């Protein structure tokens, strides 16, 4: 591989790596959001059950 080819390859690898890191960060964030949605979804039936109990006692 010539010097020019090495530099061109390095430039394109850098572009690929930076875009990949960016996509990985977005993927991690989406995973976190999915986890939080699951937590909220689990919390909602519990809250509804509490409210029903309060009404029946009152």
């Amino acid at each position, binding site marked *: 591989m010539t010097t*020019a080819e090495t*530099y*061109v390859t390095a*430039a394109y690898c850098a572009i690929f790596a*930076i875009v990949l890191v960016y996509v990985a960060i977005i993927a991690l964030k989406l995973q976190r959001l999915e986890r939080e949605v699951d937590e909220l979804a689990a919390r909602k039936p519990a809250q509804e059950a509490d409210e029903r109990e309060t009404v029946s006692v009152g």
Partner: protein
Amino acid sequence: MTPGRAQLGTVGRLHHISLPALAAASLVLVTAALALVFFVAPNDQFLGFSQRIFYFHVSIAFTAYLSFGLGAWKALLHLWKRDPNADLESYVAIHQGVIFGVLVLVTGSIWAKYSWGHWWLWSENQLVLFLVLFLFYAAYFMLRFSVDDGPQRANLCAVYALFGVVLIPVSFLAIRLAQNFIHPIVFTRHGANFGGWMLVTYFVTQAAVLMLAYTLYRVELAGKRLDARLRRLRESYA
């Protein structure tokens, strides 16, 4: 309909394209661009094989300018029309611009090391002006995260984004007004500095980078909107 309104209408219609379709189009275009860059485009007469860096370097630089411009336009819409989505859209566009700015600086430095023997030359106005533009918008995030969420933060960020847009034509023209012309110029007043397959390769690469940038913009925007909705939902449950 005026050409300006027609263009805005086109941008508006882009919002209806689904994310998988955008991602597929990006993949096809980027693959085609890489194939053209490495297997079809001929070597440049003066710069040789290293000129192949420029297809993506120039396209990414143009996309970075466009992202900063979009960020400023959305900031203007926030201040002028009080568009409720404009603040978030401006923030995401500037974020995209900064990421593409990093790519411009990295690819430019690699080419400079090969051609000039230096990673960076402080004597080159066009390099320094792009760095100033990049740092200006990088500082936008310091401002955004140092103010509490709310209308005040949105207004401050919008004004800041609008100030930065002045630097875009300065940075763009610096390459053309520089006296030493060390930095190669792809487009002059008389048109492109190359033709044939080189020009085709450049346009395909530009389309690929723009499509990739728009796809990433939409993905990030969707994530940020979901985050905001989730925060409101969590607050209502608390």
